[in-house]
Each structure stands twice: as structure tokens, then as C-alpha cells.
């Protein structure tokens, strides 16, 4: 899929899987603020970060390469959701889940989204250690251990970059092609970490510790 401005998938299984993923990585939390008391700090799910993850996965491989993967009609987000379910299945099979499965939080999701948040991270660990049967995975993960391992870092990195960048503030334009996105309000992730946003400059100049004496170019 090229980044033609097409919106993100509407497949509820895929959406549920990635909602549960980003919830596990950046959960909401409560924070004590001076003068205000306890405030709720939004997690990645509330900021729709899962839509970014799905968008990136489905726009990351160019057509000629997808064609050679025999993946023209495939969806990277769907294959990745299935990969996460494979990790969840293995965790369950090994009897290593900490908490009981819960199918109500994400009714359209698979095994991965039925795990507790910490068990989702442990399912990712199982995948990262390649403790799953690679033969049964969908293309492009099938028998591709390098991509499988790499993707576990990517699935953590993407939500973090998105949540703490300006992306959530693209609001109604967030799923358009990048050239058509517009920042509609101050990014909540920046507010959370007190980053003031793009700047023309700052005045915290504290001098120079040393100076270079240049020779003239023609010497």
C-alpha cells in the first residue's frame, strides 16, 4: 500500500490487537501535580497511537518489494497482529501467563489482546527469543527470524515516537498523507513531558569552554 492518503484499516481484529499493544507499552497513569492534585495522564491508546502503528506498518514496504514477497494483497499490520497472537499462544501453552485471559476488553481481538498488559510484553519477549514456530507464521515473517526479532523493537519504538511527537495533534488529518496533515492543537505528549514545542531560540547561553583559532583557507 502506498501512502496515498488512504485511511487506516477498519478491520476490528487488527485495531484491537494494536490498541492492546500500545496500551501495554504506554499505559495511562495518575500523576500528582502541585496545586491541582492527582491528574489523569493519557496513555497511548487514548491518543490513537495504534492508528499510527498500523499506518506505518501498512505503508512501509514499497510495491515492487511486496510483489516479490508474494504479498501484494497482504497487509503488514494483519501479519504482525497474527505474529503477536503466535507469541501469546506460546506463552499460554507454556503455562507462563501471570493473569487470567480476559476476552471482554477487546472482544474483536485475538489471544494477544486477551492477555493482561504485562503478559503482552512477555509474549513479545517470547517472540523476540524466537520461541515460536516460524514455519506457521504469515508472510513476510514466515521463516524470517531476523525480521521477527527486528519487529519487536519496532513495535515498541513506533508507539513511543508517536505518543511523544506531534502526531496525536494532527487530529482529523492524522491519517492523511504527510503533506496534508495539519497540527490542530498542542500535542498532548509534549504537554505531558513539558516540551515547549518548536522554537525560534533559547537564551540559555553559558559561554564557551574553548575556542578554535582558524587558519585562513588559502594558507
Amino acid at each position: 500500500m502506498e501512502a496515498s492518503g488512504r485511511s487506516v484499516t477498519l478491520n476490528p481484529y487488527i485495531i484491537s490487537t494494536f490498541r492492546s499493544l500500545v496500551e501495554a507499552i504506554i499505559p495511562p497513569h495518575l500523576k500528582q501535580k502541585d496545586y491541582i492534585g492527582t491528574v489523569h495522564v493519557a496513555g497511548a491508546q487514548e491518543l490513537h497511537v495504534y492508528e499510527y502503528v498500523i499506518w506505518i506498518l501498512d505503508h512501509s514496504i514499497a510495491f515492487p518489494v511486496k510483489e516479490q514477497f508474494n504479498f501484494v494483497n497482504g497487509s503488514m499490520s494483519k501479519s504482525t497482529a497474527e505474529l503477536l497472537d503466535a507469541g501469546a499462544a506460546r506463552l499460554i501453552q507454556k503455562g507462563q501467563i501471570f493473569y487470567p485471559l480476559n476476552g471482554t476488553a477487546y472482544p474483536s481481538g485475538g489471544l494477544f489482546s486477551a492477555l493482561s498488559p504485562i503478559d503482552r510484553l512477555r509474549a513479545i519477549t517470547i517472540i523476540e527469543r524466537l520461541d515460536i514456530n516460524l514455519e506457521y507464521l504469515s508472510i513476510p515473517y514466515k521463516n524470517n527470524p531476523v525480521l521477527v526479532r527486528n519487529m519487536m523493537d519496532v513495535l515498541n519504538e513506533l508507539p513511543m515516537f508517536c505518543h511523544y511527537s506531534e502526531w496525536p495533534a494532527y487530529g482529523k488529518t492524522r491519517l492523511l498523507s504527510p503533506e496534508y496533515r495539519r497540527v490542530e492543537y498542542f500535542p498532548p505528549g509534549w504537554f505531558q513531558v513539558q516540551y515547549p514545542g518548536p522554537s525560534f531560540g533559547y537564551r540559555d547561553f553559558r559561554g564557551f569552554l574553548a575556542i578554535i583559532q582558524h587558519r585562513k583557507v588559502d594558507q
Partner: protein
Amino acid sequence: MSNQDVIVIGAGGGGAVIAKELGELGLTVLVLEAGPWYGNKKWPNPNLQPGGVSSSTKDDLDVTLYKQLLNKFEMNMNDLVSGRFRWGPADRNRSQWFRHANQKGVIWQCSGVGGTTQTYTANCPRAFPAAIDKVWPLSYRELVPYYEKVEATLPVNFAATTAKEELFYYGAKKAGWNLIPTLDVKGPGYRPQPNAILPPNENITNLNITDEQLSWMEGCTLAGHCINGCPHGPSIDKIAKRSTNVSYVPLALNTGNVCIRPNAFVIEIITENNPSKGLHAIGVNIRDTWTGEQEELRAEIIVMAAGSIESPRLWLNSGLPDNPWVGKGLVNHYMDWVSGIFDEKDLIPILGTSDINPYVGNTCAARFDYPGLGTLQSVGMSPGLTASFYELSQSGYSFLNKPEINDPWDIKGRLYGYELKESMDSYRKTLNILVSTDDEVDQRNGITLDPLLRDENGFVPVVSYQPTKQSRRKRGQLVNLAADLLRKAGARKVIWTNWPAGMMIHIESTMRIGFVVDQDCESFQVKRLYIADNSVHFNSLGGVNPTLTTQALATRTAEKLFKKYFNRML
């Protein structure tokens, strides 16, 4: 320009430099760049429309357009899949160009006029002399005049100090290291970063001048957007961060002899073999990234400056002669990431302020160098990039890696849950250190072609890197030094992310001098074919940032090439 003397492939860190030098020597030069050109009137919507074909005059440069395009938003600029600074075609409706990585990590390169220097932090240290002398086929002393020329041209200065540098220096001093205010580093110590960022304007502390007015004046405004793309300055050629699109490119255009054509991906080097000249380069085939049309272009000399992945890929896709070192020997400084979280009560006595504010000042403005091991550099970035760097780990989640009693860190691995919240809540009180190792060349590492996968530009590159035992040992020592520096500076908590081996930020040594090219950077096997990018480095320079050395070598190569083939005395 149809009868150019030289074709340069790539307008990045090396290509722009050799184009300017050759143009000044009177040669006509055509520079072919695969990506877009930001800030040139001929491409008013560079990511939406094909625009013009080429540009050869400084009059086309437009600083207002440049400021509009480099809007300092980290997702818009730095997203590796769809950002303005990505390895991909100008048209952002299309996916990025595919690379096949054989290990965990990130490949951080940019297409476009200025290449990866558009997003680099402009660090310009010289190589450690000990990494060159009696190792490279040329001496450090031979390089010095070229270093000096580049340093004066960019120009390179020691970075200004803001809070994060002050804290770094404080920690280094407390850890027992000395200040080494030199460009020629022969022993360990800390120093300000030699960087290609104009010193702050004299009005930097004058509050009668607004921040916006300051951003139109000459000099760094300490806005901290080096990686997001620096747009600050009164004109393109006076932009504060000296990416080559604002430094060497305007100088090249000034010669009247250089033409730059963006959106032109070189897919083949064309050669000829005859008794008088032997096998030699005569031209290139290019593919227009907007239309897909192919075209053949010819010149007396071809210079590859496409970077350490694309130069060997182009060689291999062109069917040039076998050489066991083409694509082989890749080093990437086997990087790592160590962070310190500080408390307000500990910061105030040192800094006089309650926060470090890592987004203020030059992104990488303080360094600690240790010849034989590598370097540590302070890094302060926008929060999205900062957060994403915490997530790349060889050792998985931090709950899998409880520290031992004598470990110098409190957290190892990918952050999650409470630790993540605490770290990001402490964003303004965090000092990050990039570890950059003097890693060893190993012929098993490097660039090969995927035997099956092709894109529109040929078989795609496969990037492979595993550190040697020696490189692992050195990185381990550097991580300990970084943790000690942070702790001595007063860090309450130290986080060791333990990056995977495939962090491709400094990629070098895939077309090594002495193996693929001779000491003047001309290919041994294909005459009239030169290389002017990081790929010619013999080794990892001791662990220091590679761009200045590439630029010094490109300056030297221009001189040698001119003398050999254009028969004029210098």
C-alpha cells in the same frame, strides 16, 4: 549541462564538497541526487510535484521556502517511513526505499540535497591520529591541511555551552578527567564538540530582540532543532547548522560550473574497456524518481558519493569487477545509549536551574574522547526521538534484567510501565549519552545484494553487522565510563538501554582505501571512477563522527583527480 567533465553521484556530506572543489578548479560538474531539494525555488512543493529538472545558480535558493519546509516538527521531519528526512523518493505518497537489515537496529540515512547532513548533528571531530598513522595508507599529517580547509570553510568551532553541556563537563571533571581543548586528540579527556554550527549571534542574550527576529540573524539560536532540521539564519548560505545543502552547495553553485539535479537515482555505472585506458567509467544510467524514465549521461570522470550502503550496491548492481572488499568491512561505531535522571536539588547547585532542558542548545555539544576505546557525547533531542531511543534494546524489557549489586546502572533494557513514566516525566531532567565505539573492521560485515529482491533501482542491499569480541569489550568499557560520568554529575538513576548492534548512524568502511580504492580514492579496478563518501574510510577513525574526515578526503580527492586527469599543475 550535457558535456560535463565530472558526474558526482550524491549531494550529501561528500558529494557536495567534491563538487564545490572541482567547480572552483574550473571543471564542469553535474551532481545527481536521488532525493528532493528543499529550499530551491524550482521545487516549491518538493514532496508533491516533480518541479524543475536541475539548478545551477545560487539565485534559485530561497530561505523563506526553506523555513516553511523545515518546520521543526519531529514526526513530519524525522519519521523514517514518511518524514521529509528519510531514505526514499521525494514523493511522500510513496514508501521509502527498501533495505534488508540482517540484525536489529535502525538505518538512519536521508536522501535529498544535503544527504544525511540535513539531519546530522554537525559534529566535526578529526579522526584520532592513532587510528590513522601507520594504519591508513596515508598519514594523519597528510590529512591535516584538508581538515583545516574544511574546518575553515564550514566553519567548525567548539560548541557553545548550555545547561546540558555544563552538567556533562561537571561530571567528566568529577570523574577525574581533564579538559583537552584540542582538535588533535592523543589522550583521554573531555572537550566541547567541534561542530559545524555557527556560534550564537551576539544578541543571543539581548531580550530586546524577539526570538523570531533572532532566528533571522546569523548564528545559532540554541533552538535545539539540529536533528529536526535547522532553518535559522538570514539566507540559505548563512543557516546556522552547516549541512552541505547550506554550506558547500551554495559555494559550488557560486563557481558557475556546478549543476545539481535532484530526483535522479543512479542505477548503473557505465564502463568501457580499451587498450589505451583499460577498464574505465564513462557514464551513468539514471532513473527519474517521479516519472521512472531512464537516461544515460556521460562524463570524463565519475565520482560515487552515494554513501556506504548505496556506493557498494551501485558497484554490485553495475556488474563491476569482483573485489573481495567491495561492500565488506562495515563499521558503525557499535553505538549504545546511557541516560541519567537527576533531581532538582542536585541540579540547582551545579546549573543554577532546576532543569537540564535537553531540547536547548546544539544537540550534541559536549564530548569525551578516549583513543583506543571511542567516544561519549551528550545528546539532547525532542521528546519523540528521545522516547524511541529508549526502546531499542538487545536485552529486551528492563524487567528481564534486574541489576546486580555492583552494576553501575539502575535499569538495563527497554523501559516499560513505571520506569517509562518516570523517565518521560523526567524528560527535562535527563542527560543522555551516546556511546560510539572504536569498532574493528571485520570482512564478514558489510553490504551484499539480496539475490532475489529488487526494487525500481536494482537488487536491494542487505546490511550485515556483528561486532567483534574486541568491539564488544570496548563498548562495555565505554558504557561503564558513561555511567560513572552521570553518577559523578549527580544522577539519581542511570539507565543503560543496551542498543542492538545494528544502529546504523555512522556507517563507514565498505569500499576501503587501500583495498577498493587507492590512496587518492580512485578505484583500483575501474579507472576514472572515484569515491567520496564514508565508504572509503579504512577503519572507524577511532570511534569519532565520520563526516569531517569524509569532507577532508573529498577535498583532497578533488585535488588529486584534477591533477591526474585534467593535466594542469596545481
